[in-house]
């Protein structure tokens, strides 16, 4: 609400010309108009598929690598330097290579999303898992849990707060990157709608996908919040 108020204020007091920043009323009415059209729904669907697939891959890889390297010094010795090198690389620079390897469809964009969302999740998981209270692990071991199972039965749940924080950051990054990928090489998706509108100065149409991604972020974050309070119901902070 506040965002919209500030936005309206900026427009009404002339801080930004309407051609660059259209009034929110226009944008929202266009959004409603667009939402019911089949083409726009398809664009959203394309973006969502990439977003979820990329994010899901990042979560699975990030959590498993993070936990494995926290649990095992040998794996850690290998993973740690690799992460140090790969994490700060600007993945967009690899995008042209990805395009040629995986084509212009979902594959390259999903990979880019996964590559960018991976490291925040991995790092959070690693730190969460490496600070698990040792006596929890001891208790489980003494109860006869095999070592590899400890990862799923103790380390994973105990590191869950940290993992979910990483996921929240990864999710936001996924939203940004999926858009960026669609903007760089656009054939469909919300990013594509945005660039085409931007190139032709259709300010209202440009803001419709922006608002959509904002709302998507808000909704997804809300869902993550619900998931969080469910998964962490036993933890003191929940």
């Amino acid at each position, binding site marked *: 609400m506040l*965002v919209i108020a500030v936005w309206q204020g900026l427009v009404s007091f002339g*801080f*930004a010309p309407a051609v*660059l*920043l259209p009034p929110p009323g226009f944008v929202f009415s266009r959004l409603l108009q667009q939402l019911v059209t089949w083409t726009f729904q398809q664009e959203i669907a394309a973006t969502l598929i990439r977003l979820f697939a990329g994010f899901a891959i990042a979560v699975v890889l990030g959590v498993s690598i993070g936990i494995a390297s926290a*649990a*095992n*010094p*040998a794996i850690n*010795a*290998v993973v*740690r*330097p*690799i992460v*140090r*090198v*790969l*994490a*700060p*690389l*600007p*993945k*967009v*620079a690899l995008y*042209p*290579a990805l395009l*040629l*390897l995986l084509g212009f469809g979902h594959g390259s964009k999903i990979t880019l999303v996964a590559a*960018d969302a991976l*490291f*925040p999740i991995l*790092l*959070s998981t690693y*730190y969460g898992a490496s*600070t*698990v209270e*040792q006596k929890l692990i*001891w208790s489980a071991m003494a109860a006869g849990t095999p*070592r590899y199972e400890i*990862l799923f039965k103790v*380390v994973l749940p105990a590191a869950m*707060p*940290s993992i979910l*924080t*990483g996921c929240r*950051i990864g999710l*936001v990054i996924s*939203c*940004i990157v999926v*858009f*960026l990928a669609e*903007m760089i090489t656009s054939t469909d998706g919300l*990013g594509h709608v*945005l660039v085409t509108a931007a190139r032709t100065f259709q300010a209202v149409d*440009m803001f419709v996908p*922006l608002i959509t991604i*904002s709302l998507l*972020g*808000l909704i997804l974050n809300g869902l993550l919040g619900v998931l969080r309070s469910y998964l962490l119901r036993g933890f*003191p902070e929940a």
Partner: protein
Amino acid sequence: MTSPAALARRAAPVFACIGLLAMWQVASLALKNDSFPTALEALRAIPDILGDKEALINILASLRRMAMGFGVAVLVSIPLGLLMGRSRAVAAFFNPLLMVIYPVPKAALMPIIMLWLGVGDITKTLVIFLGVSLPVIYHSFEGAKAVEEKMMWSGAAMGLSSLQRLVRIVLPAALPEILTGCRTGLVLALITMITSEMIARQSGAGNILFNALDMGQYDTVFAMIIIVGAMGICLDAIFERVRARLVRWSEPQFDIPLSFS
């Protein structure tokens, strides 16, 4: 100090890097793609870049922006995150706000940002700031939420005001978690340092990279990527030292490796 095991641990990063480069070399040879040069080609291009005084100045300019963005982000995000973690009202206010702002790609907002801030350093520093602040805010937020209640109570009983508790109890107690956020932030700072120079370019490391990309000079592109990777390792190593010193008290004392046997 120099037992074989310790030496192996020291050398592991070197081996990992060599391994990565070797994998890259093999992959690029197998793919035979102009836009995916071999590791050797990329390595050969590094001296060209680093030998060029102008390029060095460019890279330093980028690093300066990164340091600015990172510094300001840390200074702003930690207090905000901690406040959010300790006050439901603040969290209820900022949480949706941030979630509306962050997912919007900054590249898309360029026209408006340019309108207010021009195309210079401020815009790019802002983009870096936004990239860094995301993980720092959320890790501080969750870290502050998880601070043991009775520690807060102890502080309150000693007469600490809520602000003092925030600084003197929540901050140190959440520090391990905050530093995790800062480390992710550091990674994102490097990435956004480069990508912030994608659309509006001035002197900078990203400028070198994206120009080479536009020109199809892929050995330079990948040489720049290696350089950024190397900067990442250095910054990370420095950060890790600082972290180890700050949160020694929180390190687990016993360690049973959970080997997969």
